[in-house]
């Protein structure tokens, strides 16, 4: 690595230095003089150019040290607190990692696929899986649909109050989900809540949303849609503004109505944004934790128990960390599969 010592040096002197030190070093390594020209020719693109052709400076060797110097701080944190834990969870999922292993992590016993096979027969886990699916299948399309509708309306040529609307729609996104969940609990409260009060005014009795097995999950979904539609709106708005006005004008001149313009111009050109929004929203929704944790704690009778919430309970209330790890990885594999599927479905159509 001839360039390591010149990494912090100005380029011109670095090149000169590399040129002079390279030649003797190389002849010492190769030994035979006859082999040298061949080697030089072979490695022309990489090794000797720093001294030879100034047009293609040998960046590889020159930046080796600084490249790693700039990478190390991040990598130190990243490896310790992300890469190692990602693998550790996988390893833990094949062990009986429990409370005593928090102090003696390497004492955990290897149990093979036992955790995973247990998951398949665990009714509570299957319930959580179903609930999470319910949350995603209803919540994601609603979030994306509402976000797209808001974006299209905001982009439809109105000028007044645009910022005002955008701020209003996006406000729920920036607020702490815990605080928002507390507020929604109050809004849905059967005795003092806003909805109960409004219902009473028109002579109706609002149900106790969060205490009802059939209504608790839809309530959480409504809240999640409310909170997340701002993100998809902003992304769609950016996507819409990237569509050249000429294309729209041309469509109008050709006599396209608003709906046709939307179907033939907006939707196809918005597909990359659609893919991104769908994937990100789905990943977020599959991991749902805070909403059921704060609002229902999984109840009533497990009707809002999600995979993340069950994993948290198993892992940190009961310290069945091996078992909880197998849940974490099952969810991860599901997320991966769903993401790949979505990328396939949404990408193929562009062709």
């Amino acid at each position: 690595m001839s360039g390591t010592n010149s990494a912090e040096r100005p380029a011109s002197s670095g090149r000169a230095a590399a040129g002079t030190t390279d030649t003797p070093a190389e002849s010492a390594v190769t030994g035979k003089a006859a082999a040298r020209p061949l080697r030089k020719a072979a490695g022309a693109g990489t090794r000797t150019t720093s001294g030879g052709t100034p047009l293609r400076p040998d960046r590889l060797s020159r930046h080796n040290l600084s490249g790693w110097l700039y990478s190390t701080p991040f990598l130190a944190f990243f490896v310790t607190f992300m890469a190692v834990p990602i693998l550790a969870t996988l390893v833990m999922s094949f062990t009986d990692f429990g409370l005593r292993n928090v102090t003696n992590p390497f004492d955990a016993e290897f149990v093979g696929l036992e955790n995973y096979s247990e998951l398949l027969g665990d009714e509570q886990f299957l319930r959580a899986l179903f609930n999470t699916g319910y949350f995603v299948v209803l919540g994601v399309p609603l979030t994306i649909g509402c976000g797209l509708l808001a974006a299209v309306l905001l982009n439809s040529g109105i000028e007044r109050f645009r910022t005002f609307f955008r701020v209003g729609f996006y406000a729920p996104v920036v607020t702490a989900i815990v605080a928002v969940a507390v507020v929604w609990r109050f809004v849905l409260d059967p005795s003092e809540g806003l909805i109960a009060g409004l219902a009473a005014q028109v002579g109706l009795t609002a149900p106790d949303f969060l205490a009802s097995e059939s209504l608790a999950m839809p309530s959480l979904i409504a809240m999640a849609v409310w909170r997340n539609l701002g993100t998809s709106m902003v992304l769609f708005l950016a996507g819409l503004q990237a569509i050249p006005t000429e294309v729209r004008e041309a469509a109008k001149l050709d006599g396209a109505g608003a709906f046709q313009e939307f179907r033939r111009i907006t939707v196809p050109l918005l597909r990359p944004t659609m893919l991104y929004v769908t994937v990100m929203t789905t990943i977020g929704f599959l991991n749902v934790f805070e909403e059921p944790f704060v609002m229902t704690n999984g109840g009533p009778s497990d009707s809002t128990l999600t995979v993340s919430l069950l994993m948290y309970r198993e892992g940190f209330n009961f310290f069945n960390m091996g078992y909880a790890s197998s849940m974490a990885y099952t969810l991860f594999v599901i997320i991966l599969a769903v993401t790949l599927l979505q990328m396939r479905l949404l990408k193929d159509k562009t062709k």
Partner: protein
Amino acid sequence: MSATTDTSATATARRDGYAARDRRTRRTRGVTYVLLGLGLLITTAPFLWMGLSAFKTPQDLSASPPVWIPTDWTLANFSKLFDLLDVPRYFFNSTLVALIVTLCNLLFCSMLGYALAKLNFAGKKVIFGVVMGALMVPGNLMLMPQFVMVSKMNLLDTYAALVLPSAAGAFGVFLMRQFMSAVPDELLEAARVDGAREWYIFWRIVIPQVKPALATLSIFVFLGSWNNFLWPLIATNDVEKYTLPVALATFATDPTKANGSNGVLMAGAFLVVLPVLAVFIVLQRYFTQSIATAGIK
């Protein structure tokens, strides 16, 4: 649709068409505003309800039909909240942690972003691949080993425990690399020819060029840390080290404390939401722009 020959008959027809279109646009504009207004009502009503309820007396809180504007404005909910919860302490914890996490991310992510965008070195592609792969991994997957590690390091209930796992996020690297790639190489080469050292080039030439990206990253990371819940919940047992959301959630889900005190809870939610909401309303342009750029890039 338009006629190929421009006779007076088609001209009249076209004029009529324009008039019809004008009426139509006015009508669609009306519908647009009605729909947007309805949407706005739904998105903002819970906030209004929260903000106003925080200042209500118990009578107003349980009034039916619901009272929007408090008949007697009171600070009783806040004083009760401050009696039950050490709000300033949690506020301080949340702010400190979010600030440190933001600074760490700005520094580490821009350094690695610079290396990936502007330096060539052995292993670069592997690093990039691994970091981008990590973007896909949900945070919940790492919780248990992170907890074990932090407790083995005797760091539970410390600020270090709250900061370390989020000190270097993959998203920041992605963002910084994207923006730094756009900085022209000629600029860097010129500086190198002039005898500038790498650190100088990074700090004085590249960093000023990517200020918008740094602002975007700050917003994201600060907000993420301020609103983060699951990790602080796990990493802290000592109430002294709770962050604001953890304190609020613990308070809200404890039936002995929060029973029948919706006003107090609204006061708490108000204090968690207000600073972020205020900053957002002032800087809203940057917020929405930043999420849009981050999403598209």
